């Protein structure tokens, strides 16, 4: 061990002379691991110094030029570099507007129907899932939780339609945690299947407020840009009654970022005109869309509008579908 240490130390000072002479000397060619590691660290330090020096130079040039300096470069982010999706919705697009006026959510948006939601789980839900269902029921107004008891979904759906439910939510559970969500708009509407992750119940949220009240919350839908995103956004919007009660000061947010939909439930207060304070109540979870089906839930014979195919769709890191 002493020898190895000595070799490393000796490898230090004479090394700079060695670096200059042979034209191609790469750190990865040294066989000795310790020495290689040492040389690599030294190379890294050098890189950092060069970078710092370059930064300083640039800053000096900027100050020297003053007003004539070129504008600051915008750093590249994934959102900046996103591959342009041709199905991005243009706000002024007539075709989209026409489609939305005639699709399955039109009666909701025309205020002809009031949403009534049935929340259920897969067979034999464990404690966490049950509690999550209850909390979800408090967040979404006009919703009811029913136990599954081994019933087939295909038989549940006609019964729901008979009892005037507009939406069905099924929370799938695996190993005592909820991990999937099936959202189905009932009278023959689209069915979306999501994978659910990082579920936090109310007691696990830090600095939470009191329980959500019975007021109808507002809804915020962020970043749903493509056609697919638009239809998913409308699905979420149709869960909540159309007229929010501003007295309740509650807001439910569905925020889409890089194909992950984050759900949060907050209570807000306007401290002044330019400042608002929000406090998180309610459960939180993230969803990732797996498939969107045209009719109601039917895994075998349904017509799928969109399925996430890993091999085809996950090829680029800058490509998102929602």
């Amino acid at each position, binding site marked *: 061990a002493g020898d190895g240490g000595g070799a490393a130390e000796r490898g230090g000072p004479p090394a700079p002379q060695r670096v200059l002479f042979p034209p191609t000397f790469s750190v990865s060619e040294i066989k000795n691991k310790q020495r290689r590691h040492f040389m690599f660290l030294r190379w890294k330090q050098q890189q950092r110094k060069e970078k710092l020096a370059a930064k300083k130079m640039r800053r000096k040039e900027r100050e020297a030029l003053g007003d004539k300096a070129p504008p600051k470069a915008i750093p590249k982010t994934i959102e900046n570099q996103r591959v342009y999706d041709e199905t991005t919705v243009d706000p002024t697009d007539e075709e989209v507007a026409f489609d939305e006026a005639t699709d399955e959510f039109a009666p909701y948006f025309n205020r002809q129907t009031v949403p009534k939601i049935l929340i259920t789980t897969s067979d034999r839900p464990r404690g966490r899932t049950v509690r999550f269902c209850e909390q979800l029921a408090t967040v979404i107004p006009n919703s009811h939780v029913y136990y599954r008891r081994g019933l087939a979904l295909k038989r549940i759906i006609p019964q729901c339609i008979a009892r005037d439910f507009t939406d069905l939510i099924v929370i799938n559970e695996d190993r005592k945690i909820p991990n999937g969500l099936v959202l189905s708009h009932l009278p023959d509407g689209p069915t979306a299947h999501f994978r659910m992750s990082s579920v936090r119940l109310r007691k696990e949220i830090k600095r939470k407020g009191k329980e959500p009240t019975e007021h109808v919350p507002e809804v915020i839908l962020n970043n749903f840009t493509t056609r697919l995103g638009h239809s998913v956004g409308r699905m979420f919007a149709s869960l909540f009654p159309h007229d929010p009660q*501003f*007295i309740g000061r509650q*807001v439910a947010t569905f*925020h889409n970022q890089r194909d992950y939909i*984050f759900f949060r439930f907050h*209570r807000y*207060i*306007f401290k002044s005109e330019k400042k608002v304070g929000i406090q998180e109540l309610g459960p939180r979870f*993230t969803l*990732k869309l797996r498939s969107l089906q045209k009719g109601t839930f039917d895994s075998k014979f349904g017509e799928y509008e969109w399925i996430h195919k890993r091999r085809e769709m996950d090829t680029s890191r800058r490509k998102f579908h929602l």
Partner: protein
Amino acid sequence: SPQVVWSMLGNRQFCSYKMTTKTQNFCRNEYNLTGLCNRSSCPLANSQYATIREEKGRCYLYMKTIERAAFPRRLWERVLLNKNYEKALEQIDENLIYWPRFIRHKCKQRFTKITQYLIRIRKLTLKRQRKLVPLRRKIERRERRREEKALIAAQLDNAIEKELLERLKQDTYGDIYNFPIHAFDKALQQQEAESESDSDAEREEEEEEDVNTREFVEAEDSELSDFEDMDKLETSSEEEQEEEEEVEKKASHSKSKGKTPLKGPARRKRPYIEIEYEEETEPTTKTKAA
């Protein structure tokens, strides 16, 4: 002969079908009737033997007799049993008519058990079956990582706050939140921009105020007739200042109370209080106008 076979396989030598556990010996032979390794249930050590086996949902009776011991290919004779339970039992009886009791009994027992589990299989396939989808570890890890990064990039709190402020600006909340400073600055700007058209509005406001403040205002007007414009300006600025005071009071009110938003009618009560403060604030308004 079967005794020799058993003395070899049973205890002393090796039998590849035999599985030993702490309490019992099992026989893995597919033709075994009971599944245990016994003298009477070993298919190799008994020259006359029978079993029930099922294939693709149909049950067969397999029989082995001494006469065919020399022909391994034809050793086991197979009889397809009826689908009906009772008729199949009669078939077993009729085929194994002079056979030892043990084999007959065990065959019927085995047949019963097999039919029961076949029934259960058929019932289960009708019910919903849970489809197990294997998780791919690398993909799971990747998804989790991406979710964390997306969460950081989303900056949810900021986005929500921005959206709420937008909605406030676009007046979706209507009259619930009164932040008159803003609406008030707008009104001021309007006044400055269109002072002529607004003078009528000012006069109208003053008349409304005059309804309540008749005593004071009339006296002032009669005294300072030349300074009518000044008075109008002063009173309007007084109104503005009083409204500002109102706002501050309300802001402090809201801070102290926390969450309850103040309602509209509370505001309308204030104008009555304005009357009392008018004279007190006159000197300050003068400095402000200056």
